[in-house]
């Protein structure tokens, strides 16, 4: 199915491995963060890394459909992070 060359496939595999490690780092911050704002920051980092991982999967399978999933993650991740940050600031999301 994929028509890409071995160089690109190896680099994509290495990039996906590094992005999974990056998601693990963000997960460590979510689990271990001393305050609530640290956990929200970890969630923010986690969704950006996951979106980049889905873009790399789209490159690996040479399919343009992964782009829409990445777009949705970017949009809803922003909504979620902003709602949580607003909740930390005021104690309610919509006032």
């Amino acid at each position, binding site marked *: 199915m994929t028509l890409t060359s071995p160089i690109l496939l190896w680099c994509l595999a290495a990039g996906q491995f590094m992005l999974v490690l990056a998601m693990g*780092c963000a997960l460590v*911050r979510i689990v271990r963060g001393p305050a609530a704002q640290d956990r929200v920051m970890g969630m923010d980092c986690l969704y950006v890394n996951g979106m*980049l991982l889905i*873009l790399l999967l789209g490159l690996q399978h040479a399919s343009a459909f992964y782009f829409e999933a990445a777009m949705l993650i*970017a*949009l809803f991740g922003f909504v979620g992070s902003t709602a949580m*940050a607003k909740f*930390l600031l005021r104690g309610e999301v919509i006032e």
Partner: protein
Amino acid sequence: MNLPLWAELLISALVLGGSLLALVGSFGLVTLRSFFQRIHAPTLVSTMGMWSITLATVLFFSLQGGQLYLHALLITFFIALTTPITTIFLMRAALFRERMSGRNTVPPSVSAPHGTQNSDKTKGKP
């Protein structure tokens, strides 16, 4: 259809560089000590890492399909628009919570004299 060699090398370099920068930024999230140091690290992910990988996507699909594929730049547009908003909200929330906790780890607010009930009064001021 296969890509030319220069395109494969360029896309590979962009992918490797972008994911390495994302890894460095996320690793800084773990190793830096206080929240106000840590908030700098994930910006590396959402600027350089995101730009490199979306540029690799644009190059790959443009060269493979034979026509210009600029959809992935929408992601850079949205992330570049939304990350500063989230970061500013989070920064203000962290400052507010640190001041409310009374631990004296952050300096008091410039505009409010006691620094604790500042969240309404500083709105709209730099």
